[in-house]
């Protein structure tokens, strides 16, 4: 599953970092969906379209894998705010140099 998630993210431009969180990444046997935090580095004017592209891509991946993805899309500045309750539990899956 992680391989497919990584492959999907690597195929999308603008993703500066990708993190996993929640029950799936804690290794729990039962999980409702797969929670991903995606840091997107693009111009504000492009953010909505980029978000649509990423969400659509993971909906398609979810349909292929038979799972649902719950995406939290943040800008680099938002991620730097540490807005999540469990920031320390995030699992880094992908980071792109220069982002």
């Amino acid at each position, binding site marked *: 599953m992680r391989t497919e998630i990584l492959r999907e993210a690597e195929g999308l431009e603008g993703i500066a970092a990708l993190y996993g969180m929640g029950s799936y990444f804690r290794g729990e046997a039962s999980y409702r969906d797969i929670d991903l935090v995606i840091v997107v580095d693009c111009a504000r004017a492009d953010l909505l379209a980029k978000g649509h592209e990423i969400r659509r891509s993971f909906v398609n991946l979810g349909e292929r894998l038979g799972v649902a993805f719950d995406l939290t899309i*943040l800008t680099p500045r938002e991620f730097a*705010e540490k807005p999540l*309750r469990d920031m320390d539990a995030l699992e880094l899956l992908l980071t792109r140099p220069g982002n």
Partner: protein
Amino acid sequence: MNDNGSNSWGIAFSRISHLISVLGSHRNLTGVRRHDDFIFEADRTRQGDHLTIACMDEYSAGVEFVMKVLDAFPSVNVIYVGGNWNGYTEEALEFCKYRHIGIFRGAEIIPALFTDDFWNYDKLDADGNSTRGRGP
């Protein structure tokens, strides 16, 4: 208004039902009605203006999420992200304030909807610092 509908945004009826209760009992709102499962329309008694409120369930609402809501529902001027477990980023709050859109979590929405400029509503902690924009 109390029917258990369905939506593709992953918003549970328990969340919607809670907001039905909050808005229905709010002393500054009248004519509260619901459509598209999680969108509410209401008129404010004191100000005489109209609100379109999106009931969401977002763990950490960022600018992209706000844009997504507004793209789907352009008339929305209040975004409720859910209970105290949920939140929104400072950047999302700035984005909303600039556009005169209120973004709230938990009980923030109750006092905010009494104020004329609800998008600027603020709540201070014991040290006098704003609690708005803080994550969950």
